[in-house]
């Protein structure tokens, strides 16, 4: 990072903290919206007590399970919708309908159907994940250039080889975009679910802190949420950059 960029970024962070500090006690009640230094102290204490790690891990564990299932299910469904006529005719209408129902709205149903324990969280995360993955996968598979498939046919590729070695690699940039969006959705889903019905997790921490009039703790939860999201997104990008780099090259060839 060049010095100018570093300076500007530091400045913008300082401005945000400054505004927060100024508004607490003037614009807002300092008991309900505490200044940043009080939050920092609280964050430090909660980290030392292991509470931060406990809630972060609770949310992360749910996301890992739900996201893994949702991704696999989403890719399979997306491929089916794009490649199999019957699947398209049968799945497209319900998917188009369901995609309008936000994950938050599905939480009461999830609790009714799967109870207050983990399964209802998994359901909400799978639901949040699957929608963007299905639509991106289907778009990617459908947009494979026809002549690329034809070239493979001339070179002796059979049906399965065309799918595995031509269609799927052509679709990867789309699928990966869907997976990245879905990762963000998964966190939104889990936090909302934890706010409504849970005994652990970052969403629970935030809601519970508000109810118990512990605003410093509430802010610590928000900070934690931003941090987890940032780290997982970066980790995702890094992994893709390492493992899938050759499939992302084609975006440069679409000039």
């Amino acid at each position, binding site marked *: 990072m060049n010095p100018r960029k570093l300076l500007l970024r530091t400045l913008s962070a300082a401005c945000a903290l400054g505004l927060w500090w100024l508004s607490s006690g003037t614009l807002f009640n300092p008991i309900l919206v505490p200044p940043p230094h009080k939050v920092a102290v609280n964050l430090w204490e909660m980290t030392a007590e292991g509470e931060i790690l406990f809630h972060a891990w609770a949310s992360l564990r749910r996301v890992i399970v739900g996201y893994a299932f949702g991704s696999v299910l989403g890719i399979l469904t997306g491929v089916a919708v794009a490649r199999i006529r019957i699947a398209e005719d049968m799945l497209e209408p319900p998917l188009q309908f369901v995609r309008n129902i936000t994950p938050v709205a599905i939480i009461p149903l999830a609790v009714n159907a799967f109870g207050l324990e983990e399964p209802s969280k998994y359901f909400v995360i799978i639901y949040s994940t699957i929608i963007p993955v299905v639509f991106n996968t289907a778009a990617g598979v459908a947009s494979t*250039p026809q*002549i*690329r498939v*034809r*070239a*493979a*046919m*001339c*070179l*002796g*590729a*059979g049906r399965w*080889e065309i799918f595995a*070695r*031509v269609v799927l*690699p052509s679709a*990867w940039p789309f699928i990966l975009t869907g997976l990245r969006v879905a990762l963000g959705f998964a966190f939104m889903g889990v936090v909302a679910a934890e706010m409504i019905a849970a005994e652990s997790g970052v969403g629970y921490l935030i809601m519970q802190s508000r109810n118990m009039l512990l605003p410093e703790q509430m802010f610590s939860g928000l900070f934690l949420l931003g941090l987890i999201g940032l780290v997982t997104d970066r980790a995702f990008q890094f992994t893709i950059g390492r493992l899938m780099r*050759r*499939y992302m*090259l*084609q975006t*440069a*060839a*679409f*000039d």
Partner: protein
Amino acid sequence: MSWRVLRLEGVGKDFDRADGGVAQVLRDVTLTVERGSFFTLLGPSGCGKSTLLNIVAGFEGATTGGVSLDDTPVTGPGTDRTVIFQDVSNALFPWMNARENVEFGPKMARLGARARQELSEKYLRLVGLDADGGKFPFELSGGMKQRIQIARALANDPDILLMDEPFAALDAITKKHLQVEFRKIWNETGKTIFYITHDIFEALLLSTHLAVMTAGPEAGIKEIFQIDLKEPRSPSNPDFAALYSRVESLIDEEVQRMRAR
């Protein structure tokens, strides 16, 4: 597979139009392409040349008539016929480097790593890209990409190369070099070439046989020439010039006829 002639007999192709009608694109195309020849199909744009090539490739079926190698009908794509596409960026596999692209056919044929490597080295050398095997398509110019596509096709050892205006999207200088080089490659490999172009000069420079198409719809064959020009072929040769104007007037006639409709 040993065969003597590629035959197109009474090939016609209809497409359903958006308004519910039927468009007859090709009508009664009959051609004989002898093994080892360089057969070029020349015609004004939109006359159905590519459709005809797609039918020979087996990508599309003919509405009437059919294509056969001797007496064996062509029913679908096969490794005996490989297409070289004009849109090379989409034809190549962008996630594979040049070598991997060339080795795709041999891999599908279940050849071992050693045999594949020998083939890719041989054909990358033939197209003059032996030093660029590790590069990915996005790192290569249009002309280089087209060389890779030619090497990829040859490494699969087809009997016939079906070429759909392969050099039309290249700049004039690259195009000229590739035309000359490709003719050498054809000489060395002895493949049968079924070539499509709208460029009269290119057709006369490369082909042993030239079929001029009538304007579409209902396009067919107007006239077939056997080309025995003095080698090396050059536009300054009077025979070349004479044949050029002859073919040009045929094409002009067709363009006029199309406009008059």
